[in-house]
Structure formats: structure tokens, C-alpha cells
């Protein structure tokens, strides 16, 4: 049985002979959901390798504590691994960034970003996501947050070291441990961008699933992948704004920005950005306006 060519009753034949795209518009700043899914996947594979290498370094320390390894020295250099022996502060940093990358950049951004983007239009019979532009922004926010998270590995005090849960006081007091300074600040900036990326992706997923199903694709005819992705997006939309609040307000409310007035600004950012911007955007695209 081949693929049946059954026409959508009120559909329109799609012009496949569209204009030639440039390299940049086709592979870099693309609006095409299939290419964006590949971008998420390849970025996630790269980030996964960073996390795996980190885990191997701290596993070597746990198995043979205090012994030097060329592998450790190769990746961390003399500063963080003198004689190939992992520095205790860097141990905490590696555990923290390993968890952060795996939870957020591989299993959240990588998994949902890849398969939601690939499958939603294809399994529901849509030409693309509801907003190709927002979809593109979602990936590039994800990419930028990945770069910032990786850049925190190279700052003087090392990356965030408070665990992936970044509990205060290690996340709140900039001088608590070496990773509490610029590394922690970069972690917070990175995660805020990541959350923005997730919100843009999630809103797009929900709107596409609710509004762009082809004729005959009732909710009860959707594959379970679609149900899972729909609920995942809803969970993200409901819970991630709380995480923005947490990222911006809680550590910011102590000594991170050093001045109380800055905390007021970040509180305002969280309250006046997430609620008046995100909520009307959601309602407007849900209503199709």
C-alpha cells in the first residue's frame, strides 16, 4: 500500500517550486521546522558530549581520589587540574554544569526541541509551525544560552558550583565559593535565555497542535507523541515563568547585584516582563489574532 494522495477538501495545492533560498536562510536563520529540529538535535549532541566528558572527569576522581590523569589535565589544564588531579572547586563545578546541561540543554531543549519541531507539523498534517519566526527565535535563544553556559567554564572563578539546583546561599552570595561569582551570574543569564527559548517553543507547540491539525485529525486521532508533546508544552508554560522569577529574583535579592535597587529592577523584569508580555502573546496567538 503506497501513500494515498487524498486531497484535502478545502486545501490548496502547495507551490513546491518556490524561490531558491540562500545558505543563511536555509541552514542558519531558517523558519523550516524540519531544519530547526536538526539544529536542536546537533546542538544537543554537542552539549551531551560536554556533559559526558565532565562526568568522566569527576568519576575518575571518585574512583581513584587524588590521582592524576592525563585525560583530566588535557581538558582542564594546570589551573583546575594541577598534575592531572582534579581541583575540589572544579569538582563541584563539573557536577553542577553536568547536571544543568543534561537536564536542560539535552533532555529538555534537545529532546522537545528536536521531536516537537520535527513531528508536530508532520504528524498533524500542517505545512509548518504556527510561527516559523518564533520557532527560529526559540532555537537561537537556546543556542545563545548554550554558548553563555559554556563560556562560564572559562571565567576566572570557574562556573557555577552550587549544584544544578543552585540553592542559596552558594548561589546568592557572590563570594561564598569561587563558582558563586561571575560563573553563577552567567548561569543565571544563560538559564533566563533558555527559559525564554522554552516558552517561545512551548507556545508555538500548543498553538500549532490546537489550531493547525489537518482535516479529520481529531484530538482522539492524534498519535500519542502529540499528546505527550502538548502536555509537555503546557507544563513548561506553567512552570518556567516561576523559574524566571527564581532565577532573577531570589539570587538577585541578596548580594548578587550588590545593590538593593538592582533587585528592584530584576523584580520588575520578572513581574513586568513575564506577565504582561508572555500572557497576552499566548492569548493573542491562541485566538489567532
Amino acid at each position, binding site marked *: *500500500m503506497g*501513500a*494515498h*494522495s*487524498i*486531497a*484535502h*477538501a478545502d486545501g490548496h*495545492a*502547495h507551490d*513546491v517550486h*518556490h524561490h531558491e533560498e540562500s545558505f543563511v536562510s536555509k541552514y542558519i536563520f531558517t523558519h523550516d521546522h524540519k531544519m530547526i529540529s*536538526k539544529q536542536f538535535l546537533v546542538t544537543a*549532541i554537542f552539549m*551531551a*558530549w560536554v556533559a*559526558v566528558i565532565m*562526568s*568522566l572527569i569527576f*568519576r575518575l576522581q*571518585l*574512583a581513584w*581520589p587524588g590521582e592524576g590523569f592525563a585525560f583530566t589535565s588535557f581538558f582542564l589544564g594546570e589551573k583546575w587540574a594541577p598534575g592531572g588531579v582534579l581541583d*575540589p572547586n572544579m*569538582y*563541584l563545578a563539573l557536577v553542577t554544569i553536568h547536571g544543568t546541561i543534561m537536564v536542560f540543554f539535552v*533532555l*529538555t531543549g534537545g*529532546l*522537545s526541541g528536536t521531536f516537537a519541531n*520535527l*513531528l508536530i507539523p508532520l*504528524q498533524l*498534517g500542517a*505545512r*509548518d509551525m504556527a510561527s516559523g519566526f518564533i520557532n527560529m527565535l526559540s532555537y537561537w535563544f537556546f543556542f545563545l544560552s548554550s554558548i553563555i553556559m559554556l563560556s562560564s567554564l572559562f571565567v576566572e572563578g570557574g562556573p557555577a558550583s552550587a549544584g544544578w*539546583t*543552585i*540553592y*542559596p546561599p552558594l548561589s*546568592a552570595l557572590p563570594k561564598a565559593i569561587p563558582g558563586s561569582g561571575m560563573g553563577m551570574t552567567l548561569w543565571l543569564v544563560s538559564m533566563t535565555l533558555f527559559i525564554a527559548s522554552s516558552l517561545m517553543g512551548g507556545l508555538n507547540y500548543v498553538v500549532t497542535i490546537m489550531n493547525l491539525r*489537518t*482535516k*479529520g*485529525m*481529531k484530538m482522539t486521532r492524534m*498519535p*500519542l*507523541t502529540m*499528546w*505527550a*508533546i502538548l*502536555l*509537555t508544552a503546557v*507544563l*513548561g508554560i506553567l*512552570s518556567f515563568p516561576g523559574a524566571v522569577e527564581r532565577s532573577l529574583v*531570589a539570587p538577585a*535579592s541578596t548580594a548578587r547585584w550588590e545593590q*538593593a535597587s538592582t533587585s528592584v529592577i530584576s523584580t520588575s523584569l520578572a513581574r513586568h516582563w513575564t506577565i504582561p508580555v508572555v500572557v497576552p502573546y499566548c492569548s493573542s496567538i491562541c485566538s489567532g489574532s
Partner: protein
Amino acid sequence: MDHSGGSPVLFQHLFWFLGHPEVYIVLLPALGITSEIISTNSRKPIFGYRAMIGSILAIGFLSFIVWGHHMFITGMNPFLGSVFVFTTLLIAIPSAVKVFNYITTLWRGNIVLTPAMLFSIGLVATFIAGGLTGIILADSALDINVHDTYFVVAHFHIVMGMSAIFGMFAGVYHWFPKMYGRMMNTKMGYAHFWVTFVCAFGVFFPMHFIGLAGAPRRYYSYSEFPMFDGVLDLNILVTLFAIVGALAQVLFTYNFFYSVFRGPKAVQNPWKSNTLEWTTPVEHIHGNWPGPLPVVYRWPYDYSKPGKAEDWVSQITPLDHDEEEH
């Protein structure tokens, strides 16, 4: 709260209000992928379609009212703790429904063991193994004994980490032909699965015992504490499995990138699957379908339907005049 202090416990509440739904943000897509792959490769309809949807909805709702189980030792009122114990244990019900439905879908199926199918079955195994220790950790009376130990590390790496990773691998192997128009190497896929599967349990299973011995997580070295001398050998074993498991991912990475450029060309529907994505051309085109959008006439799980010539029926195939949908 003034602008100069803050409450670490409030921070934990905010964190885990995201943090626990995050577990399901990670898991649900993997479970959705698994549902699709297990049904396709068992050549059977998914068992309990509506129950699966109900389970997803229930998990989504419950995930917002269980966060306190991460905070049993913060000094919360024991009565409040018992509420979180109750809500957390409730989540085992829809989770068990999903596991039951996966197994009953597999039961007496005409199983095709593709690498994607192996990873999906692997997900069911890790979801069970990690879910069982979740029941222990949900109970505050037990949790406070192993809180912040390697027992917790073992639990969440198996139930959340490995399950989601296995789902992701399954998805990559299954939809690779749709993404790149080429096939991945199957033999390398099998080797990748078996080494990863064995090493996953080799790494995380012993961690339960390290945790039960009382070893806290995030310690730089355990050799300074005589009471943890017994876990040193286990730590070596864990690390050896981790190294071998990492090498298996080299194989996957090679297979992935080699196949992107040099893999054999894929046919339109290599897995004989019912869903719409397999009705699009192999070559990617703008707008996905060259002509009008397809029209859907049936659910996506009409596998081995009695009276049909083949063991799959695409969603775009109209119902026969005397055929019931499902």
C-alpha cells in the same frame, strides 16, 4: 521579603515548583516516542489509547502538587509532608498504567527488534526500575534516611536520565530516515543499545548501595571518611562502566554523522507506519506535502487489523463502508 535578604526555603519552593514538573517535561516526550515505536514495532494497536491520554493528563496535573517531596528535611510541618507523600504516591498510578499498557502492547505482538524498539523497551525497563525506588523516596519516613545520598542519584538517573535518554535515542533511530532521508547502520545500533543498556545499570545500580551505606552526594572524596571505605571498590566499578558506556556513545556519534552523509537512501515508509509523516516525500520540501494537505480518516494505530491485506493502514486510508474506526 525585603530587598536585602531572602528565604532559602522560599527559593527551594520556587525551584521545585518548576523542578518537579521539569521531570515530566523531560519524561513525557520520551514516553510519547516510546508509545509510537512500541506500537509500530509490535505491529499491534497501542493498548488503552484513551487510558494513555488520561495518564498523561493525570501526570501533568499531579506533577504540580508533589514538589514538597524534595524538601522533606527542610523542617516542614510533618502533616504537610504527609500530604506530599500522598500526592506523590498517587502519581505512581498513571505511571503504572502506562507501563502496563506498554507491556500489554508488546504481549503476543509480532515484534520487530529495530534499534529504536530496543531503546523503547529499554525505556520501559528503566522506568520500572527507577519508578520502584521513587516509591521509596516518596515516603517521607524512608526518604529522610537516604536524603541527599547516592540512592537519590541512582533513582533520578535511572528514572529520569536513562529513560529520557533511551527515548531520545529511540526517536533518533526511528525518525532518522525522515530527518535525513537516509538510514542509520543497524548493527552499530544494536551494539550501541546493548553496551549502553548494560553500562547504564552498571553505573547506577551499585549507586543504590553506595547511598544506602550513607554516602552523601557531591563529596569530592570519600577516602577521608573510614565509614565509607566499603564504597571505594564500588566507585571503581561504577567508573569503569561509565568509561565503557561513554565509548558506546562514540559509536553512536560516528553512526549518526556517517549516516547523515553516507547512509543508504531511505524509502518513504521504512517501518510501515501509519502516521502522516511517512506520507511525505523522502526529500524535504517546503510545506511538507507537494499537493493538498492529507485528510485523516482513522486513528494512527490500525496495525494487524482483521480483514486488511497488510498489517498496517495509513491514517489517510478511508474506512471501508462497513468498517468501524477502532
